[in-house]
């Protein structure tokens, strides 16, 4: 038997080197970290990065400006975009009419201002709808796996296999037959339906991938362990934590859908020509600039469209840089 008092002076097993007293260690510094402080969420971290990015502010201010134009176009132009004065046909920019007149004698400036609404609303509505469908289907597929996943994945494959533009043209021509004479909002909604019907699978895939990545993490198990139902786990823990890639794609897609709307209107199947929209005006301008004159008729609606899309793209870039740690410097 060994003497317990003697062993206190002997080094303990494995302790054959000098060990400093706790007072002498830098471990003391642990006291200066406030462990009660709640950890910063992903969104707060992202906001901090976003705040310092000047591209974010440029795009945010531009988008705010465009949003005001969309909501109250009357604030920027008192001229009726539908009043044509043929005597002024194709006249260039002049005082009171900064963008000149098109062939019909419409005031181009007024049409650019009033045309913003259709384009932006189509982009926003389509993006919101495809995001909702994509998040729900993608989360269900990723979370439940097995036959739910197999089913959702095959359905997205089917929709993916048909080129978006062609599918939207077929869809719109079908809608034209089923639902003729649909007015301003009906016209806008038809384009939204056609684009959303074939746009959602992209978001399903992204949401599914994001859910697969996080569904084995500890906080998901923790939520189950404290007795949350599967739905509660899915909707309050999994989905909010897999939103980042979806939001990044959404900001970029917004621009893509605005361009798609213009393309469909250009093809003569998107918004009816009675609706004032950038796509319709650019399409009409094509025949008026054939020889290289009257460029103002094309330049201004195309410029308005490009500026809007560019703002959404820049915002998407800034948001991605803020949310994705892999590309952060």
């Amino acid at each position, binding site marked *: 038997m060994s003497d317990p008092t003697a062993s206190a002076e002997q080094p303990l097993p494995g302790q054959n080197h000098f060990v400093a007293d706790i007072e002498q260690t830098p471990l003391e510094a642990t006291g200066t970290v406030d462990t009660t402080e709640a950890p910063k969420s992903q969104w707060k971290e992202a906001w901090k990065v976003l705040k310092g990015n000047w591209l974010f502010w440029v795009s945010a201010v531009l988008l705010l400006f465009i949003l005001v134009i969309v909501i109250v176009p009357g604030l920027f132009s008192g001229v009726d975009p539908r009043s044509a004065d043929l005597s002024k046909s194709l006249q260039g920019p002049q005082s009171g009419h900064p963008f000149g007149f098109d062939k019909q004698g419409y005031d181009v400036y007024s049409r650019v201002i009033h045309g913003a609404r259709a384009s932006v609303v189509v982009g926003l509505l389509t993006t919101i709808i495809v995001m909702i469908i994509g998040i729900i289907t993608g989360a269900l597929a990723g979370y439940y796996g097995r036959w739910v996943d197999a089913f959702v994945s095959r359905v997205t494959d089917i929709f993916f*296999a048909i*080129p978006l533009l*062609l599918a939207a043209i077929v869809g719109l021509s*079908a809608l034209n037959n089923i639902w003729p004479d649909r007015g301003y909002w009906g016209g806008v909604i038809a384009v939204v339906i056609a684009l959303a019907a074939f746009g959602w699978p992209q978001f399903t895939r992204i949401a599914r991938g994001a859910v697969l990545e996080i569904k084995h993490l500890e906080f998901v198990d923790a939520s189950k362990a404290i007795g949350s139902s599967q739905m509660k786990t899915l909707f309050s823990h999994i989905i909010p934590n897999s939103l980042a890639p979806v939001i990044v794609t959404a900001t970029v897609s917004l*621009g893509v859908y605005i361009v798609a709307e213009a393309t469909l209107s250009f*093809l003569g199947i998107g918004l009816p020509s009675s609706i004032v929209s950038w796509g319709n005006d650019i399409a009409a301008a094509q025949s008026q600039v054939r020889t290289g004159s009257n460029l103002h008729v094309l330049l201004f609606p195309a410029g308005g469209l490009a500026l809007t899309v560019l703002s959404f793209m820049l915002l998407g870039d800034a948001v991605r840089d803020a949310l994705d740690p892999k590309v952060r410097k």
Partner: protein
Amino acid sequence: MWGYIARRLLQTIPVVLGATLLIYAMVFLQPGDPIVALFGEKPVSETARAQIEAQYHLDQPFIVQWLLFLKGAMVGDFGLSYSGQPVSDLIARALPVTFQLAFMALVIEAVLGVIAGFYAGLRRGKIFDSTMLVVSLIVIAIPIFVLGFTMQLVFGVQLGWVPPTVGGNVTFTNLVLPAVVLGLVSFAYVLRLTRTSVIENLGADHVRTALAHGVPRTQVNRRHVLRNSMIPVVTYLGADLGTLMGGAVVTEGIFNINGIGNLAYQAILRGENPTVVSVVTVMVLIYVVMSLLVDLLYAALDPRIRYV
């Protein structure tokens, strides 16, 4: 490997069936009588109607029409268009033109996009990088048809370097401008994708290890950074051929090219339902084959991937 290909081919069957059914439903389950549309102002006699209905299987239930279409499609027979031409002939005439156009666009966007994206990624934050980013954003933001007819105006009408429209005169040089226009948007995406991928890979452990081993920088960039960055780019390019053929609707319209996009668009406008479903079916098949090829290409690019 062969087992994997067989399984992938089996997986494509429901996709092709589903996609054709979907497009078939969208085209044929519409109100309106195609026969009335066919005759226009003239009255339709009962015998003529019965004969046409039998010829196009319009007297059958929808699902039977679809099955009959599939049966023909499997041996390359897409039936007759409402104007009486075999749809397979129409497609056979239009498809090579669009294929040439889309392939040229794909090569242009792949080569230029990868080179520009690679150098932009290596010189992140420098003037070349910033210029390329701005250029790519502008290209994405301006609709393809605006770019299309601006370039048509400048190079075709004013400078006269190329004919403004192609028409029946499909030659390599005539297709260069349309191919550039068609590939421009994808060029911007390829550039951005390559750039992001290169930046991610530059920070990867295997790149640092290679450099630490004393491998020259240019060799590391080429063999370790570029090759690994190609994986997402190849996926994008593979899926893009289908998009390009769909997007050809606009480009072919502007430059008056008698390709598959124009064929589809005219068919949709005229209510030529048999042609519409056939063209879309062909595009779905092209998409499916391309995605299989992309999956197989992965193994060449990433030795970690094995097919079992």
